[in-house]
């Protein structure tokens, strides 16, 4: 048997890695609710098809289609990695067009030059349009939950968010 001291470097490294992972595990940065406007959906099986597609997505706890309004309402759990890109892709694959949406999303606020971004666990990049940080007394690096209107995507790499409400997560 080797003395335990010889294992210290390995044990310390493992502990360091574990400590680094703990904060990541606590980050819950994702879409919480989504009301997605859909164009072109006219019939009950169309709606059923879209609903079934959405219910199969990671983290979706409830999906409901309103044919009259042309809207899909999605509720998510707080530990998923489904992106808005994936949701809208599933609508396009169904033969319809995703338009603007109302979203409730949690993420990390980041300021780059004059632009404010909301970073989530997915590859979605949310750009906060005309965002006044002073109004919310918020600083970069804070975890927040935002309710916002998302404009229809126009081939850009990010989503334009018009913030309705912002709530900072309490610092632990």
């Amino acid at each position: 048997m080797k003395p335990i001291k010889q294992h210290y470097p390995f044990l310390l490294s493992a502990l360091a890695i574990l400590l680094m992972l703990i904060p990541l595990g606590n980050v819950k940065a994702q879409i919480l609710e989504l009301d997605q406007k859909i164009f072109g959906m006219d019939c009950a099986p169309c709606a059923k098809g879209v609903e079934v597609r959405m219910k199969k997505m990671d983290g979706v706890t409830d999906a409901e289609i309103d044919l009259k309004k042309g809207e899909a309402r999605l509720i998510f759990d707080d530990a998923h990695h489904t992106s808005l890109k994936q949701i809208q892709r599933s609508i396009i694959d169904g033969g319809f067009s995703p338009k603007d949406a109302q979203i409730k999303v949690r993420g990390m606020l980041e300021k780059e030059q004059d632009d404010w971004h909301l970073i989530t666990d997915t590859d979605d990049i949310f750009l906060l349009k005309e965002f006044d940080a002073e109004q919310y007394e918020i600083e970069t690096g804070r975890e927040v939950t935002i309710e916002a209107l998302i404009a229809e995507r126009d081939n850009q790499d990010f989503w334009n968010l018009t913030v309705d409400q912002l709530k900072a997560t309490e610092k632990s």
Partner: protein
Amino acid sequence: MINTRQKILLLTIAVVFNYSPPVAAQGGHGPAFGLATPTGGKGGISYNLTFMSLRQDEPTAMLRHTWNYSPAQKLQLNFSTPTPIQNATKRPRTRGGSLMPGFGDIELSAFYRFHQNNLGVGNRFESTLITGVSYPVDEKRGGINSGSGFHLAAVTGYASRSWYFWGGGGWQYYAEKSGEQLGEVIYATGVIGLRPRYFREKNPHHDWRIFLESVSEWTGNDRIGEVDVANSNKQKVLIGPSLLGLYGAWGVSIGMLFPVYESAGTVPGSLISSESPRAMINLSYWFF
């Protein structure tokens, strides 16, 4: 007759379609007889069981199984096989329903939605190109050898929560077989549909709509040894109602077409008699 290799090929295709995993799909089947734009979503699979009745001197009835699969949002592949119930030597030369092949044909077809504009909530304007190849299961039709077929059609239309409009046309060609050739069929269809207000709700359990359909057909002369068979051609116009009901993954469609104009049949010397009304019942299932 189908040989053993062809039977194995058909069985393989049927098994592949049968055992594909059920994935999300959505449909929007429309009229019973007229051309329409299909709306299968990517990965969608559906099945249609169709009963069709035609009469020209003698009654003719057919059951047809059609499998639909959409490998992409804009593309739908279809495989259709007939089961004759009541066969007649002289039956109307038609594709039956415009989204179906002729009475005795096995058909592999593709629908390509080359244009789509989702105009608003519940509204869309789209156009589809339809093409297919067919293989006959019968030896002769009206005394003429049945050859392989080729079908080409196009349709454009508007769908909404209240009104539907489709207009289209197509061409069915039959290849020569042992010196004989069935006459081609050129056709045009028009459809107007209405979903009653009661079924335009938020999330209806039932979805019903009614259609008024018209089919105009120009059937060419059959040919024997490079010579046209005189008076074997015909032009006709048929109009009639159909009803489509959808519930969950199920759909049922019932329709009738009544001849309102026939160029032959009443003409002395014509080889073709007048046609009686056509009837169709279609049962659809979507594998969600």
